């Protein structure tokens, strides 16, 4: 196992070395037994016939149950660790990642895009929300002991906390075509102060929510989704993270995946009172993945349960929606964005 640079790396390595040790003991034991028996009971005359042994139930049960207990123990150990590393921290800084043949793009919470690079502050829990533009990729940082497939058509997440400043390899781990082995880059973990300085040094980009608002207007979303509930579509204010009642009786949590799906395939899960059929046209093929990420950021900025998400340096995020409230029906309902 290589360099450890994330909060879970040490725990993964302990499990690895424990299993390696156990395996070495088992393999060595069997090899020694085979060697010893081969010499001790070697055939001494051509017509030798050994005493026929049938087996012994006690022995069989012993070597059924000991491996069973050992297996159950390792399973539990690994599964509990897995649950812990899959669950994102509540105060995680969220970074959007898109994979395509054959490069990575990552967007900082404050809006800067990076190609084949990702900068994160040390000690800050990070959650990557990832999607692919074409085929399946996989975001893999060996030093963090973390990897996750990146699928087209949905978001998958990967959580980590870097513990050591440095630059680490980033690999695509799922075969994705000709230049798969060139789909590599680096993740740079920086001390929080250096990270802030680095952010300043980058071209101070427009915030994702602000970009999202521009798309929201240019695609004409604001015609139907107004700040009050008076539009053709439901209002999006305060929506994020809420449970929505669907026309077919089910409920759905409004998260990134649901928003994405509703933009690309509005007929799939229609909100009660707005169809079916929904009157919204599909935007599949018109809105690209980066625009989708911006739109989601904008809708999040309109408020909802998980408003506090995205710690880090994204203080501009909720503000964006509040200050630049769209002209179409600002009305009195400014209850959306919470501080």
């Amino acid at each position, binding site marked *: 196992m290589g360099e450890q640079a994330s909060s879970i790396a040490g725990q993964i390595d302990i499990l690895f070395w424990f*299993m390696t040790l156990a*395996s070495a003991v088992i*393999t060595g034991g069997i090899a020694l037994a085979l060697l010893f028996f081969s010499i001790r*009971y070697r055939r001494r005359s051509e017509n030798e016939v050994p005493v026929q042994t049938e*087996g012994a139930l006690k022995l069989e049960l012993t070597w059924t149950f000991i491996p069973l207990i050992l297996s159950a123990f*390792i399973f539990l150990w690994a599964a509990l660790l897995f*649950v812990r590393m899959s669950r994102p921290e509540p105060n995680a800084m969220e970074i959007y990642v898109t994979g395509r043949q054959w490069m990575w793009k990552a967007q900082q919470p404050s809006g800067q895009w990076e190609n084949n690079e990702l900068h994160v502050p040390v000690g800050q829990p990070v959650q990557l929300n990832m999607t692919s533009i074409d085929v399946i990729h996989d975001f893999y940082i060996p030093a963090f002991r973390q990897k996750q497939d990146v699928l087209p058509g949905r978001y998958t997440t990967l959580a980590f906390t870097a513990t050591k400043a440095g630059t680490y390899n980033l690999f695509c781990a799922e075969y994705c075509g*000709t230049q798969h082995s060139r789909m590599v880059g680096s993740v740079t973990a920086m001390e929080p102060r250096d990270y802030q300085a680095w952010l300043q040094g980058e071209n101070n980009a427009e915030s994702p929510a602000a970009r999202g608002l521009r798309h929201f207007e240019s695609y004409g979303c604001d015609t139907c989704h107004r700040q009050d509930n008076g539009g053709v579509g439901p209002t999006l204010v305060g929506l994020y993270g809420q449970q929505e009642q669907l026309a077919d009786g089910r409920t759905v949590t409004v998260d990134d995946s649901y928003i994405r799906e509703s933009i690309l395939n509005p007929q799939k899960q229609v909100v009660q009172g707005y169809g079916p059929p929904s009157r919204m046209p599909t935007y599949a093929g018109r809105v690209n993945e980066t625009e989708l990420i911006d739109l989601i950021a904008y809708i999040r900025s309109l408020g909802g349960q998980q408003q506090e998400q995205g710690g880090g340096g994204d203080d501009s995020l909720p503000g964006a929606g509040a200050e630049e409230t769209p002209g179409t029906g600002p009305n009195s309902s400014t209850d959306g964005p919470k501080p």
Partner: protein
Amino acid sequence: MATISQPAGQPLRSPRSPEIRETYLNASSGLRSWLFTVDHKRIAWLYLMAISFMFLIGSAAATVMRLELLTPQGDMIQAGTYNKLFTMHGVVMIFLFLVPSIPAVLGNFFIPMMIGARDVAFPRLNLLSWYVYMFGAAFILYALVTGGVDTGWTFYTPLSTTNYTQNVVPTALGILIVGFSSILTGLNFIVTIHKMRAPGLTWFKMQLFLWSLYATSLIQVLATPVLAITLLLVAIERTLRVGIYDPALGGDPLLFQHMFWFYSHPAVYIMILPGMGVVSELISTFTRKNIFGYKFVAISSVAIAVYGFLVWGHHLFVAGQSVYAGMVFSVLSFFVAIPSSIKVFNWTATLWRGSVSLQTPMLYALGFIGLFVVGGLTGLFLAALALDVHLSDTYFVVAHFHYVMVGGMLLAYLGGLHYWWPKMTGRMYPEFLGKISAVVVFVGFNLTFFPQFVAGALGMNRRYYAYDSEFQIYNVLSTAGSTILGLGFMLPLLYLTWSLKFGKLASDNPWGSEGLEWKSATPPPTENFDEQLVVVRGPHHYTAKEQVVG
């Protein structure tokens, strides 16, 4: 041991009588008598020829890959060529070599003989399945010579269903057709073992090779159709643009992975169970004991076949499957290790107070146990959820499955081929060279694949044509090892061919085995046995009264 000297090129004679005895080899002659034979023993030879050729193609691809990987930069061939090579290596080795290897060659030859029958239940179907295999193989080879495929043997969607790649459809159709051959063979074996056993041969008197091939056949019949459906849907999505797997068309890419591994994980057991069966035979014969805990070993084959259907999701731990699904598949994967470990412990215990003879086949069997233990235990690393996150899709996985499939299945196949060679050909192979080959293969194999565990644990990804220079040392070791391994494979190819004509004549039972197949003459007559066998004793029961030769 027979020492009758006879000029080379003469028809085979029984060592006991100078007269020419009719055997399945000289019963008829000419190409037609082989291509239209319904004798299971001759069909086994047809398969042996075909899969040996496929093995050479698959090995050639591996050789070029290992050479390319000597240096971290991609400098010898193009990236696209490299991707086609590993796809070809996987497709050919898995579908055209490993899946048919032991069942279609050794199983075909020895299942009827081990149950005292004169042929399989459906001899014509048996011949048909060889032709189906050749027809499917032709599709795959056609795709190969007309530009190749670069999706990897796993054909993950949507990569495989976009126009970006070529030749996916002929390859998929080829695999689908070869799958039918596998189904027909499995069906034939199941019926044969159920209906054709000699009087007195009850289930628990059957040799363990039969148990393992019975379990294998069940998987072949039940799992292969799912692969056929999966690949047919890939072809349909590619040609008709019907959205099944591609999200751009409204499909679901994970659906493909679930369906693919629903076949391909059980297929892993198609590629190891027969090897376990062979090794059980070898250990019995070369210790002159029935396998310790025979019933446990027999049942464990069936348990592996059943469990094998419930663990496919362990290929999807990082693919976007839910955490809870991951936990279920993880615990089931740990359980499948139990029947495997039962087998290993019982094989080892069989040597205890046995009469151990380290002839070539036994060396291969011992090598099998060692490599299979490593392959099996490293499988548990990959079944352990948190650890799999780091290790999946790295060289750790590559090393793991080569330890199981090459270290396991291929060593068992070579061991079995040496063991039964005298019965199949009437000639002995040169024993000294045989031992050398077993040792060279074992050493070369470990040098090739052990460094890959290390590279994988350090984070080297599989299917990388160029790699980070920190991994070079492991790749140099691996390439060096593969050279030795290649030599180890060349040796048997040469001396076995040589022995067909110049080998010492073999007696009926050169190993003094109690296996039923050795009760026939060497080489066997077309009918296998001159008279109907009646089985009264359990398998591999050795008694002092028995006259043991050689």
